[in-house]
């Protein structure tokens, strides 16, 4: 383990430090005649009760101060911070969700509108087609009627014209015959010939 390695290293450092300090101390003590210490002050048992007494007193006071004042003052701040952070995060998440919802509803309404528009367009196209067909039919019917009528009229006029032409031809023929020849010819006979001629020509 890492910690163990550190500890072991420190143990060796300690050994070296203590050993070297003791060497130095004895070297100094040799030249130091005024020194009045008889060994380590730490091993002077007479000072232990006071140290233990004050250790207990001060540590207890420290425990009291730390547990009643220091820890609450720090932990409340940390707690407040984490609360604030989590509530802010929640708010942000909520806002994000709202935006997402709004976007999706906008998209769905857009889709609706599009399909509705397509529907309307299709319907209108259908209607227009139907209407056009109807009108076309009506117009073509009317046109057919008109052209029939016109044809009838034309043929009538033609017949009339033809018959009047026959009359004219008969009259002219009779006149020519009576004028140019001594033959007196009956009008009905001439008419018969003219009509035969014209029918043939037709």
């Amino acid at each position, binding site marked *: 383990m890492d910690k163990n390695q550190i500890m072991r290293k420190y143990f060796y450092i300690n050994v070296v*430090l203590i050993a070297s300090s003791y060497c130095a101390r004895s070297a100094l003590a040799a030249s*130091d005649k005024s020194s009045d210490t008889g060994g380590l002050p730490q091993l002077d048992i007479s000072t232990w009760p006071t140290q233990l007494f004050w250790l207990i007193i001060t540590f207890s006071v420290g425990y009291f101060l730390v547990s009643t004042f220091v820890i609450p003052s720090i932990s409340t701040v940390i707690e407040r911070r984490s609360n604030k952070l989590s509530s802010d995060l929640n708010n942000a998440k909520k806002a994000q969700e709202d935006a997402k919802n709004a976007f999706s509803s906008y998209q769905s309404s857009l889709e609706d509108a599009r399909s509705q528009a397509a529907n309307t367009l299709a319907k209108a196209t259908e209607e227009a087609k139907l209407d056009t067909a109807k009108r076309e039919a009506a117009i073509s019917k009317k046109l057919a009627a008109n052209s029939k009528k016109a044809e009838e009229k034309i043929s009538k006029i033609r017949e009339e014209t033809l018959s009047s032409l026959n009359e004219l031809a008969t009259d002219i023929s009779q006149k020519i015959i009576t004028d140019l020849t001594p033959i007196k010819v009956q009008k009905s006979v001439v008419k018969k010939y003219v009509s035969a001629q014209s029918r043939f020509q037709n």
Partner: protein
Amino acid sequence: MHSPVEQFTIKVLYSLSLFGYDISFTNSSLFMVLAVLISAGFLLFAMRPASIIPGKIQCLAEMLYEFVANILDSNVGKEGKPYFPFIFTLFLFILFTNLLGLIPYSYTVTSQIVVTFAMAFTIFVGVTLIGLFKHGLHFFSFFVPEGAPKILLPLIILIEVISYLIRPISLSVRLFANMLAGHTMLKVFAGLAVMMTGAGGLLFISSPLPLLVIVALTGLELLVAMLQAYVFTILTCMYLNDALHLH
């Protein structure tokens, strides 16, 4: 010329006695009181703004808090939470007595074996009692490693018990010896510097050299003061974890 260990002498500042015991207010007591007052006072002062966005000093206080809280959490877990005030007090007490001891003419409380041993022994007894109360007689299975060969069991149990019983000694001697050695070293080099100035000649000219060593050593001792507070705390947490979870 004084001995380099004279700095550890207990000097009575105000004589007191209780039931025949000498409980005089000494230089050691003074620095215990100062350590407690300064640590608690510093943290309370630092947390005074109590703002969600911390300033520099508040950040430092919160870092100390979270540092110890993380040690406890990573070593013991959730069950260690009730012991956090004690662990935090312990860390602050050792850290501040170590650091205050580095100030010249001050006193290093933790350089006294009786102080460190009292703390380590209290922790040892407390942790053992916690283990006994939590697990009853099952607590003693702690000394029997799982999967060990049956023949070796007596030897292993003996070793385990000894290593368990030696914990308060190793814990206290580690801190005490570090403080003792470091401060003695500083005094030795200081004494050397003084002696060299008195010797004259070439020694007088080269007397700043030990002073440079003292500067370097002071830096090292600052590190040791903090590291030993950390080590003491983390080991206490490990022992607590052993008592609560048995391996």
